[in-house]
């Protein structure tokens, strides 16, 4: 994962190494305990609140703040924050607040969708490999290794480059780019999750309670979903949380290299990219999307940190 391209945004590392984690369960419910512990983690709570607020703001904001995102007005180009433009305006005189709110929707959506893609893929591969073992495990792990050995950034850029057109043709520019970016980030990031889940499955499937389930005739799918999966889920949740942040960051980096969303789709990354030449002329153009990215990622990471502590079943508070 964190192998190629030091600009790769991949704070998944801490989790990837925590392969062996199986510990005895407690009498109280796992999720109840976790929630109790999570609430005590003040920074994590603050992070969760911030992120909720951001998401809500971006979802509801454009309905309340009804300034168009693309109205050009050279008379007010690069004007600093004011009552008319609370976040100022950009070089074309477009309202920054409207663009930041609108862009947030896309950026956050990219983050979540990419996370869901990679987690789904990873859990699927990891669960099948870990549960069935043998040849299936071998083949799946070879494929995982192969994907891990891909020079990720090279591949990422190439795929975006290659499939950008067919996909945008079929789905339209916005949706197409969205699907592409989400797909690429997802496809190149599922491997650590797969390894985590596989390791978890290998450890848990031999435990007595699974043995018991098997002996009373529970089918393999039900064994996997009902009995094993919940026990290996906590590192996956943490990894997933952090990958939301990674995806948001990766989207902005792609935008910087010119492979991201088209210019009329103001994602946070795109806004920041557009602002870079105006840093000394109109710093507010970079400031607000920059703060948004930073806040979003910071809050997600704190949540992930809190979850990590909260979901650790060895903790007793």
């Amino acid at each position: 994962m964190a192998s190629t391209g030091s600009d790769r945004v991949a704070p998944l590392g801490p989790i990837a190494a925590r392969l062996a984690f199986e510990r005895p369960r407690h009498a109280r419910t796992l999720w109840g305990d976790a929630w109790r512990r999570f609430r005590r983690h003040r920074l994590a709570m603050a992070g969760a609140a911030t992120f909720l607020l951001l998401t809500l703001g971006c979802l509801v904001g454009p309905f309340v703040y009804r300034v168009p995102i693309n109205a050009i007005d050279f008379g007010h180009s690069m004007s600093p924050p004011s009552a008319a433009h609370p976040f100022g305006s950009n070089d074309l005189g477009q309202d920054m607040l409207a663009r930041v709110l609108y862009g947030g929707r896309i950026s956050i959506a990219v983050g979540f969708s990419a996370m869901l893609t990679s987690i789904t893929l990873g859990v699927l591969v990891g669960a099948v490999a870990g549960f069935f073992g043998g040849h299936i495990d071998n083949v799946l792990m070879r494929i995982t290794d192969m994907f891990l050995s891909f020079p990720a950034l090279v591949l990422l850029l190439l795929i975006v480059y290659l499939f950008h057109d067919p996909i945008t043709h079929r789905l339209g520019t916005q949706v197409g780019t969205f699907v592409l970016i989400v797909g690429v980030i997802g496809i190149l990031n599922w491997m650590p999750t797969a390894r985590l889940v596989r390791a978890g499955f290998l450890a848990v499937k031999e435990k007595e309670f699974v043995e018991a389930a098997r002996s009373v005739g529970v089918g393999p799918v039900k064994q996997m979903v009902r009995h094993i999966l919940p026990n290996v889920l906590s590192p996956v949740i943490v990894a997933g949380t952090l990958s939301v942040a990674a995806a948001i960051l990766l989207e902005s980096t792609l935008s910087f290299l010119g492979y991201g969303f088209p210019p009329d789709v103001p994602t946070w990354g795109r806004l920041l990219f557009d602002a870079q030449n105006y840093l000394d002329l109109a710093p507010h153009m970079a400031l607000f999307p920059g703060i948004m990215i930073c806040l979003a990622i910071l809050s997600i990471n704190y949540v992930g940190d809190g979850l990590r502590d909260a979901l650790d079943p060895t903790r007793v508070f």
Partner: protein
Amino acid sequence: MTKYILRRLLTAIPTLILISMAVFAIVALAPGDPLAGLATNPDVPPEVRLNILHQMGLDQPLPIRYLKWAESWVVGNWGYSFGSHIPVTRLLMQRLPTDLWVIGSAYLCAVLIAIPVGVISAVRQYSLQDQVATTFAFIGYSLPTFFTGILMIIIFSVRLRWLPFIYNVQVHDPVGFLKQAIMPVAVLALFQSASLTRFVRSSMLDNVGLDYVRTARAKGLAQSRVIRRHVLRNSLIPVVTLIALQLPGVFTGAVVTEQIFRVPGIGSLLISSLQNSDTPVLMAIAFVAAILVVLLNLVADVIYGTLDPRIRYG
């Protein structure tokens, strides 16, 4: 052990062949054209451009191109760059020293910052130091490198005029040589150390709660000794492996940072080759990176095995 390494190496070969096929297909199918820069030049008619493409063998079917490439690759001929027609190996060798120096020092700085900070914030979990370090780390990797890079240029080059922001390999005097590396190294080190700090911290926390640490304390060992002799040693095992796994990054370079500071490393070569559809160069970079990843994965596993006696190779 030797048998294990040998087996791993043998299984790596089919993986690498598959990777080379996949990468070749993607690179070759990519819709670019090495001569796109001449398209709007009315003095260079399209038939001239088509003729040059023919000279480069770009009009042959894909499997044939792959076989030709693989054949010459095995004997060490990595082809010629389409743009300058210089051997790819020479082009890479021109770029590599810069990367080793800039990215290498950034990694080194990152490690030197991350280990002490990570250890402190683990030992004093939830203390003020920990909160500050955590916040610093999170901010470090919440900011895209292109943003921190440009911010630094505005502050240190444009406003304060302290540092040059264009990396020039022709600078030979030691002061200038160091000065021009400060900003790219700082940007990269900030980013790297941020995630590494978190990694060290969590690796330490994993060990602090374990039974052998409790035993060590119970023996009456001093806290500092427990940390240094027991926890740190064991916690560093995964850290060392992570660092080994990140080493191919020194080869692929840091695309964004190199772009911003015009560091002539392999990352900027990658981007320009991508833009110019310079297939032989792209292939070489991608494939060497893949080989390095596979090899260093092996190295990481071996390190893990040597440092951690619990792991046995079957």
